């Protein structure tokens, strides 16, 4: 009983000493798990246009958080398959519906083999991204818990792309979130 009284006094004393003490509201910056989509290009025409399956965005972060601000802070593309298909280019689109509309985010250009090593959007192989449109789209996607990523472009010249050739796109996303009660 004496311990309980002392504990109570100690607890009661803390606010009297100016102990506030958790910031409220408190927003943590959430590292969303990287969203990676692989596109199998084998058998495709050299001009390709591939759309991802539906991505359920809530699968990529701690469900205990309510997100209020989502932003992409990097985007990487890598390719698999050798020998090189030659000069290639891509356009990356994001949407919240598989039928569109689509928001064009960025374009890339370079030899197929360059992308055998993952290339970041900060590399010289990417154009200036449309950051404003991307931010708006990614926030809408997370609000609706649904995201589609479309990649179109060209992989060198010649016949159908041989088996074993694929492209992988990874989105790195950060969000501001508060713990849901």
């Amino acid at each position, binding site marked *: *009983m*004496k*311990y*309980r009284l*002392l*504990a*109570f006094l*100690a*607890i*009661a*004393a*803390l*606010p009297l*000493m*100016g*102990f*506030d*003490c*958790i*910031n409220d509201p*408190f*927003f*943590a*910056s*959430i*590292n*969303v*798990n*990287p969203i990676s989509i692989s596109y199998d290009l084998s058998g495709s025409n050299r001009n390709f246009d591939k759309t991802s399956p539906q991505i359920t965005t809530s699968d990529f*972060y*701690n469900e*205990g*958080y309510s997100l209020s*601000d989502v*932003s*992409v*802070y*990097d985007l990487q593309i890598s390719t698999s398959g050798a020998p090189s298909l030659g000069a290639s280019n891509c356009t990356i689109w994001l949407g919240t519906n598989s039928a569109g509309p689509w928001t064009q985010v960025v374009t890339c250009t370079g030899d197929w083999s360059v992308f055998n090593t993952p290339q*970041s*959007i*900060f*590399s010289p192989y990417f154009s*200036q*991204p449309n*950051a*404003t449109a991307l*931010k708006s789209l990614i926030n809408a996607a997370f609000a609706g818990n649904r995201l589609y990523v479309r990649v179109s472009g060209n992989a060198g010249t010649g016949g159908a792309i041989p088996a074993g050739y694929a492209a992988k796109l990874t989105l*790195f996303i*950060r969000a*501001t979130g508060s*713990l849901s009660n």
Partner: protein
Amino acid sequence: MSMTGRKSLGLVLLISALCVVLTPAGTVRAQSDLKSTLQQYSESEVKGYIQPVADLFGADMNSGFFHTADIAKMGFHFKLEFVGMASLVQDAQKLYTANAPTGFNPGTFQTATIFGGTGSTVVDTRTGFTFRGSDGLFNTSYFPLAAPQITVGDIYGTRFLLRLILTPEIDKVGKITYWGIGAQHSISQYLPMIPFDVAGHIVFSKLSLGSDLISADGVSIGVDASKKFFILTVYGGLAWEKSSLGLKYKPDDVSLQAVDITLDGKQSFRFKAGLNLGLGPISLFGDANFGSITILSAGIGFGI
């Protein structure tokens, strides 16, 4: 549900250690917020954010041990004390330089530590991409710790100290274990010509919280001096100390490696000065400690 006294004291420590609001629900929320916030950080990111806790908690752990250097060569001494410590949060501990993601220009930015305000956002100059730091979690000008302790002796001029808090598993918080063990040995018994009392001390402390999420260690080795004037004892001391804070968790981002780090507290030396008022079996004491961190300590003791 009725709470036991031991559990209540454990909560006092928890509340103090984690700077929690003053309800059990708040306690759980702070622990939950802290854990969830930490889980957003990679090992390299979390160091700057949490370093002030390592500095301040370590300084607290190494405070409030002894309030006199007057130890009999042989005699009976027993005191139960409740000690509160509070290290002052400096403005410099509210911001740290964080790394922006690879490729960003600028590559670093200033944002809130766990004691800071709103997290800052860095904007990459080429892409316009943004990256935001977390908000500070604790809004406080000091970081407190409270603990019960027993001092017992005196045998061959030596007095022993024990701090101990053990709690059962607390929902969403886990088990708390905090102990400190040490001894103070009279030096003045060998130097009877000195007009005041002098003693040396060594104390080891350890805390673990929440299924290994947080652990802390401390050691203090120092010299204490005191002089008694009727019911008032003036005391002071110098001490070398070391502390560390360990963090273990798995980040939410599955692409990040599990975090298992140890951060050293920055305080390594302190000077303290204080007063101890003896009112029969009750004593009231308080001291100020100066080093790279300033700590205030006060408490009440029962015994002889």
